[in-house]
Structures are given as C-alpha cells and as structure tokens.
C-alpha cells in the first residue's frame, strides 16, 4: 500500500512537470511578435498578405496566458493540434512515429548500457594499465564523433561499398508493401516484434538489417557516457573496505569484482542509464534524420525547423512525461539494488 502510495505521489509530479515544461515553451513563444509566431502557419508566399487574419484565427495577439489556457482546454479535449509538417493531427502522427523510435531505443539501449558497464569495469579493474587507456580513448573518440558525419560515413561504407548491405530507412520496399498489406497483423507496430509474431522471418531479417547502422551509430557515440560513470564508480568501489574484507576472506578476484564491487558501482550507473534511455525514447533527432528512419526524432526535427508549434509542444509533453516516468523507474531500481534506499 505504501508502495502504491509512493508511485501515485510520483505520478502526480508528472502533472507539475508537464505544466512547467509547457509554461516554459509558452514563455519562449511570448518572446516573438505575433507576426513571427504566425509565420508558423504560413505555407505559401501569398498568405503573407493575410497575416492579420492568421493572427486573429489562432488568437496570437491575445495575452500569452490566454493562449495557454486556450491550448490547455484543447488538450483536455484530446486535440493536440494539427502538425503541418506531416499534414495530419499531431496525436495521430505521434502514434504513427512512436513505434519506430521505441524499436530503435529497445535495440540500442542494451548495447549501450551493458556494453558501457562491461567496458567501464574492465577499465577500472585495469586502472592505469594500457587496456584502461585504450578503452577510454576509444570511448572518448566515440563520444567526440559528430553523429551526422559518422552516420554518413557508415552509409558510405555499408550502403555504398557493400552494395546495400545495411540500408537506411526502416524497411525495404518489398517488406514495406507486405507489412502494409492485410496479410500482416500489426500487433505492436514495431516491425521486428510484429514480424516474429506473424512468423515472417524474412521481414524480421529485413528490419534488423535496417537497424544495424543506427544501432552502431548510437552505441559508438553513447557508450562513453555509461562507461565513464561505471569506471569511476567502480574505481571508488574497489577502494572500499568491503572489497578488502572480501579479499581477506580469500575470495578470488572475479568474485570480488562481480559480487562485491560491481553491485555497489552500479548505483550511479542506473541514473545515467535512465537519462540515456529517456534520450533514446525522446527521439534521436540526428540519427533518425541521417538514416531517414521516420520516428519521433525525425518528425520533431522537421517540425522544429518549420516552427510546427503543435508538434514541438507534443515533443515537450512527451519528453516531460518520459522524464518523470523514467526517474520513477530509476528510483525503484535504486531501492532494488541498494537496501539502504527507502522509498518515501
């Protein structure tokens, strides 16, 4: 009961955060003149003459809080606005793009988090030895790679040189047609999972082939983050008294590292992993753009550069919700790993 209470209280925080983030966006919107804000709704050079009527219809000349409450009222009615970039309601576009983003996040997060934990502990255990310098160097190189450039180079090699081995986009043409046909039931709309559920192995393979390059890109670039936190917390943990105690008991180095040091070291890693997962779910803008994977990041990038305000607000709302929920999960994991943590 206590536990449920805790979760409910944490989810109430969600509302606070969502109001906060949208208020900030509206505050930023107020920095612009109504004309500038109206430019978001202009699709055609001819409309420039009717700018006043656009301002009127969208209420852009009213005080900002009036606009905010108008907007809130619409949200509660379930109307998230019309996304001009994709010419459909924002909520529908969201539902459409979400599965592709989730798929990428689900496939890359394990590599980043588990790989980072592994590299970090190897690095810490061999502190200041060549292998430590080497893994750290590689991970920092990864962290310094410009995503857009690395993606392009990967495409150059694996799409150009290896003749389409790992193509961009989400599915090949044949697979795409098949997926959209009636024969294929879209349970989750996540292609890899649906393909397995439908027993269409070739579609699964096709989807995986399209996933390889984005996953490599994300892993190479993000792994450093997890790795370095793991490394420093592992180093700290290895210097603690309980590690000495374990060694004095006669435990082998492997046991000492795995059972005594690593679990303690994982505690700070959970925080970054949560943050990282939120980033992955919240739309990896550049990776999706480079590989032309039509997910949330791709949509929001386009929307932001065209001032598609409903879409940007959608991005803000979703990221805010993600932030709260993932923080909650992180806290629950904390309590699971560290018996000293009490949920209050």
């Amino acid at each position, binding site marked *: 009961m206590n536990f449920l209470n805790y979760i409910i209280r944490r989810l109430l925080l969600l509302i606070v955060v969502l109001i906060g983030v949208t208020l900030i966006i509206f505050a930023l919107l107020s920095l612009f003149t109504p004309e500038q804000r109206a430019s978001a709704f202009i699709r055609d050079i001819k409309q420039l003459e009717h700018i006043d009527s656009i301002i009127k219809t969208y209420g852009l000349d009213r005080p900002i809080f009036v606009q905010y409450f108008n907007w809130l009222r619409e949200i509660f009615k379930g109307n998230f606005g019309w996304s001009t970039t994709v010419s459909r309601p924002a909520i529908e576009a969201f539902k459409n793009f979400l599965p592709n983003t989730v798929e990428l996040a689900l496939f890359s997060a394990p590599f980043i988090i588990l790989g980072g934990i592994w590299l970090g502990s190897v690095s810490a255990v061999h502190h200041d030895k060549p292998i430590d310098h080497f893994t750290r*160097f590689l991970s920092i190189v990864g962290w310094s790679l410009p*995503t857009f*450039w690395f993606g392009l180079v990967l495409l150059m090699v694996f799409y150009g040189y290896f003749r389409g081995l790992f193509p961009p986009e989400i599915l090949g043409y044949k697979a795409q047609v098949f997926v959209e046909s009636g024969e294929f039931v879209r349970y989750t709309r996540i292609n890899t999972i649906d393909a397995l559920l439908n027993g269409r192995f070739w579609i699964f393979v096709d989807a995986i082939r399209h996933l390889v390059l984005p996953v490599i890109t994300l892993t190479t670039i993000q792994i450093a983050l997890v790795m370095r936190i793991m490394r420093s917390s592992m180093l700290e943990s290895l210097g603690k008294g309980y590690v000495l105690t374990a060694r004095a008991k006669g435990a082998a180095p492997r046991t000492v590292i795995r059972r005594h040091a690593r679990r303690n070291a994982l505690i700070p890693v959970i925080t970054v992993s949560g943050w990282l997962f939120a980033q992955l779910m919240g*739309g990896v803008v550049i990776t999706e753009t480079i590989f032309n994977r039509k997910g949330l990041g791709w949509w929001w990038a386009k929307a932001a550069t065209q001032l598609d305000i409903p879409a940007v607000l959608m991005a803000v709302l979703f990221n805010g919700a993600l932030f709260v929920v993932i923080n909650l999960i992180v806290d629950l994991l904390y309590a699971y790993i560290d018996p000293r943590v009490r949920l209050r």
Partner: protein
Amino acid sequence: MIFLKKRRIVLDFEQHPRLKEFKFSFSKILRNPLSFIGLSLIFLFLMIALFTPLIAVPEKPEEPFRIPHEGYSVVPKPPSPGHPFGTTTKQYDIFYGVIWGTRTAFRIGFMVVGSILVIGLVVGSISGYFGGIIDEIIMRITDIFMALPLLILAMAIVTALGRSLDNIMKSLIIVGWPIYARTIRGSILTIREEDFVRAAQAQGAGTLRVIFKHVLPNAIYPVLILASLDIGAMVLTAAALSFLGLGAQEGYADWGQMVSLARNYIVGPQGQPFLYWYVVTIPGLFILFFVLGWNLLGDALRDIFDPRLRRK
C-alpha cells in the same frame, strides 16, 4: 647534497597551497598520455586559428569567411595542387573551408560556453549563496529544463530567430545555462558549509567578498571541467544544427555546413563507391579532432579533480 634536499622541501612548504595543487594537477595532465594528446590537439587547432590568414590566404580580405569557389559545377573535384583537399559541390575549396572553419569552431565554442559560464556563475551564485525562495524558484526552473527536449527546442529557437550561425549560438546559450547554474550552485552549497568560509564570515567579511574570495575559487573546478567538455559538445551540436540547414548561408566556412554540402556525394557512382570520399571525410575529421581534443582534456581533468580518485 643533504643540504640541497632540505632546502627544496622547505621551499615546497612555502608555496601557496592552491598553487601547489595547480602544479600537481598540471604535471598529472602532462604525464597522462590521453590528456597529453588532448592538449596537443587543442594546441594544434589554436595554431591554425592564429595563423589562418597565412595558411589559407583569403581572396577577398573583407569577407574572409566566404569560401572561394570556381564556377558552379555541382560535382566535387578530387584533391589537386590548387585545392589540396579537393572541392566540394559548387566547387567550394575544402582546404580553405576547413582552415577558416577552425576560427568559426573556436568562436562557437568560446562564445557559447563563455556566455553560459557567466550566466551560470551569476545565477548559480545567487541561488547557492542566498538559498531560500530564490534558490527554490531557480532550481525548479532548471529542473524543468532537464525535462525538455533540448535539441529540438534549440532547433525551434534558431528557426524562430532566423537561420544563422549567431542564432545557433544564442539558442545553445538559452538551452545550456541551467546545467551550469545547477553545478555551480551544488559546489557552492558544499563549500559554503566548509570551515574556512564559516571563519571568513565570522570575521565579518562581506557577502560579496566571501563569494569572490573564498567560495567561487573553490567552486570553480567542477565547472571548468564541465566547460572543457562542453566546448566540444557545443561545437558538435552547433555543427549538427548547421548540418540540418539552420546555420549560416551557403559557402560560409563552417565544418557542419561543409558536411551538409557533401550530403549528396556520400556514395559514388556505380563501381566507384568511394569516389567522393574527401568531401565528407575531411570536414568531419576536423570536427572529430577538435571535439576529441577538448573531450580528452576535460575527461582527464575530471579524473584529476575527482576527490574520490585523487592521488591514487
């Protein structure tokens, strides 16, 4: 011999502790291979930025950041004596672009991180030193920034302000300051409780004096580490925004834009997949090495100043 040895030790003790600490840290930086590579890379780019007009002589000195181009042919041309790195689409000279792009990169890095640092220091000090309701409000605002999709926001801000490099910098400042304010506040809070600050206050030192003389010098290290890492990160983000077409007008010496220009020439024609390798690889490597330099330095600094790992 013994006499000399003793003298040295005596001198050691006479040094100001902060100076001694600095010397210790600096020698650690130089001894660590990774941070040494980082420092060398930064030094190299600094040299390029200093001697830019000598390395790539501008044709129009009044507009040095415009990359010269010969004709408008869209097909890139491979390296040749006149164009050591070849030309990208529309015949912009890659060599000229990357060399002058170094200055652009330094400008972005220093301007953005410098402004964020100043804003962060002011806001963070106010928040950390005075506490109470001001602190509460500022911290809730920064909390909320943590929950925002910052890249998308930055893109929207640039678009709203108008596409240009300066606006990219402005938008990065707008989304970037809260983290600094938070970090500075955090370290101020820890230091405010320490004995020497208490002692200074007890001796009747004024608030400003305490902040500037005692608190900030000790709170600044974590921020400087963050800043060093962020010069890389900001240049990277700015390049990404530039790449997405939010940057300066075409032909401006900016690495991100040069990668963007290469976009249609990633994959060569049938049978020659790497025909245009230079258009994308060269500007990308410049970004990579620049960012790598700062990241290596920042990472080493973080290890050196990590009190938990210090003097291991």
